[in-house]
């Protein structure tokens, strides 16, 4: 019966279906749960289960173009459900399951924002979340038509001919240029940018990116990355599924608590490729004890690709040194530059070749100049993110969007065959970043003999462990804390070399004086941030009118970050009679 679901348009379902025909008993997805036998979806079982779920979707009148938010924890049904949504021509959008510390109102605000922006039609979630999500459905003007609980649906049953016919009818409407999926950035205050990708974009991307990393039938991907993130969804899910190779999916919540799970899975499954944000190299190297590595063999790991945070040389060194004795090939270390707007990767280092390095003068770099360091003490080692993948062009441009020469820092612009179809229902935002087919990333970098180096970003987004945090969201909640002067707050990221990522800092103006009052205020600020699931590491309280304004009249994040972090300012602040500013790293949640 499955044959009838083949689609001449070669939309992505057809690719999955062909893989199931070609290798029905091959593992497609190995669902990994700590302490349990992994659940193995073969390609045929995955497709059969997805068909059954697609029939249920049709019964609920879910079809082409409907946006379906999927908010579920690590569960083996998530994968066939995602496939089923695609099968009937609807558009899946996987969203993060809310962390217990996230306030339900803030979570709902995100759902409501998505509904307003993307025209969200259906929500698939777990019964536990019903009370939180239902108000979004019932609010006036909501676009949400219904809430479903797929874990309660029947699976594994044989469809009747009528049921299958109805699925086929829906599926046949799907064309290769139709939207396949939506990826939503986090952010709660109208900052969400829903990236829309077509079947064509994803299929072409997996083809060319697969070539760039030499993907072959012996490969097996192992990932703990969440599927609401482009790296997890495209690299570790769509890529293997479309190219017919297995992927091991570890629960991100379990991995972050027990980082050795990734190494267990690599060793037991003979995994070959993983993508990691930079902080994970530090975390795995620093937080796993030797006795947890008994019997671990990492020889099969041919690519460990660093992506989604600035790539740090020290993290690579630390990782290689730590795991060389467990069979890690130093040449497996690799890097990539990617973003949802170009489906995923734009550059990639060639497999088996170490990423190129440049030792640059740290002071010159801070001034936006590329100068080879003459003095090792002043050198910052920059790691290449590789060369462009096929059918992708990158250029570095100045503020007038004119291309600049090698070793000149500018904004990174990309033209790709697998470019997104724009931000859904957000033409003005799309026009800001796309011009003449070029996507202007907002990231800064430079080129050097075909290699691209990413060194920073124009936007103020804070990246903590691969997650984007919008300073506006944080400033909004902190500005409402009693004792903080409204609108007089800035949030920014501070480099954390030990963790290999950034941590979050806040400067808030307040008239509060006295140790006890200030300590309480800092705790109130930290607790307010917890409600939007952000952990603040440093709170700097400053007196009224301390913050420097930008020309637009708002506190400048860049200028105030530089001011607070500069040694002279900290010294001045410590010696003034206000006493509200403390040196960095000293004021984390001091309560008492």
């Amino acid at each position, binding site marked *: 019966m499955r044959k009838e679901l083949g689609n001449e348009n070669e939309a992505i379902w057809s690719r999955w279906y062909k893989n199931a025909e070609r290798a029905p008993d091959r593992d497609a997805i190995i669902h990994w749960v700590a302490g349990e036998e992994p659940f193995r979806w073969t390609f045929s079982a995955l497709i059969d289960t997805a068909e059954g779920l697609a029939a249920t979707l049709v019964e609920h009148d879910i079809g082409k173009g409907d946006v379906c938010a999927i908010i579920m924890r690590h569960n083996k049904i998530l994968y066939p459900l995602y496939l089923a949504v695609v099968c009937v021509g609807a558009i899946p959008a996987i969203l993060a399951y809310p962390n217990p510390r996230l306030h339900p109102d803030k979570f709902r605000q995100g759902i409501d924002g998505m509904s307003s922006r993307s025209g969200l039609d259906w929500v698939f979630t777990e019964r536990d979340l019903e009370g939180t999500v239902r108000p979004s459905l019932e609010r006036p003007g909501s676009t949400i038509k219904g809430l479903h609980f797929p874990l309660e649906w029947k699976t594994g049953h044989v469809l009747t001919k009528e049921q299958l016919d109805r699925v086929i009818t829906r599926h046949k409407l799907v064309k290769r240029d139709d939207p396949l999926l939506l990826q939503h950035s986090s952010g709660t205050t109208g900052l969400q940018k829903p990236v829309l990708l077509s079947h064509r974009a994803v299929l072409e991307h997996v083809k060319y990116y697969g070539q760039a990393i030499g993907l072959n039938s012996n490969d097996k991907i192992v990932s703990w990355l969440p599927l609401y993130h482009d790296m997890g969804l495209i690299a570790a899910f769509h890529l293997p599924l479309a190219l017919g190779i297995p992927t091991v999916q570890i629960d991100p919540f379990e991995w972050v*608590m027990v980082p050795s799970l990734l190494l267990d899975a690599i060793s037991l499954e003979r995994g070959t490729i993983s993508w990691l944000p930079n902080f994970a190299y530090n975390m795995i190297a620093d937080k796993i004890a030797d006795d947890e590595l008994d019997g671990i063999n990492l020889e099969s790991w041919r690519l460990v690709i660093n992506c989604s945070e600035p790539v740090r040389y020290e993290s690579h060194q630390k990782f290689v040194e730590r795991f060389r004795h467990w069979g890690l090939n130093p040449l497996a270390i690799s890097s990539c530059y990617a973003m949802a707007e170009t489906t995923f990767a734009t550059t990639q280092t060639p497999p088996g070749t170490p990423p190129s390095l440049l030792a640059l003068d740290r002071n010159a770099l801070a001034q936006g100049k590329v100068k080879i360091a003459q003095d090792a003490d002043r050198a910052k080692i920059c790691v290449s993110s590789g060369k462009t993948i096929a059918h992708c062009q990158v250029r570095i441009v100045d503020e007038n969007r004119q291309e600049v020469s090698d070793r000149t820092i500018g904004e990174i612009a990309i033209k790709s065959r697998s470019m997104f179809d724009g931000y859904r229902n957000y033409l003005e935002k799309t026009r800001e970043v796309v011009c003449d087919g070029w996507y202007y990333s907002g990231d800064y970098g430079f080129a050097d003999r075909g290699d691209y180096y990413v060194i920073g970003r124009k936007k103020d987004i804070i990246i903590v462990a691969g997650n984007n945090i919008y300073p506006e969201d944080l400033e909004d909640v902190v500005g409402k804390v009693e004792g903080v002067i409204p609108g007089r707050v800035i949030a920014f990221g501070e480099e954390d070399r030990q963790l290999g990522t950034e941590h979050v800092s806040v400067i808030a103006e307040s008239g509060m004086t006295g140790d006890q009052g200030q300590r309480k205020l800092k705790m109130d600020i930290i607790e307010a941030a917890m409600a939007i699931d952000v952990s603040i590491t440093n709170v700097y309280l400053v007196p009224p009118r301390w913050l420097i304004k930008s020309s637009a009249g708002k506190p400048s994040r860049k200028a105030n970050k530089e001011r607070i972090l500069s040694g002279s300012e900290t010294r001045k602040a410590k010696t003034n009679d206000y006493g509200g500013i403390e040196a960095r790293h000293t004021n984390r949640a001091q309560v008492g």
Partner: protein
Amino acid sequence: MITEELKRVILTALKLDDWDIQDETIATQVPGWDSLNHVNVILAIENHFRVRFKPVEVLKLKNIGDLQALLTAKLQKPV
């Protein structure tokens, strides 16, 4: 009942001077105890009390009372 010693190790790992920690307290209610810091708290406890937790034991913990019970069991177990 959370012992003063465990509470102090947790607070030190999180750079907190004080916080009300009860049996029912869950990690996400404590400032700084987010998913990234969880592993640091566990390592601090392991190092301080000279015990080792198995991955599955760590993943099964629902609240700090569970953590205390697991620690107590480890400490009572003859070496």
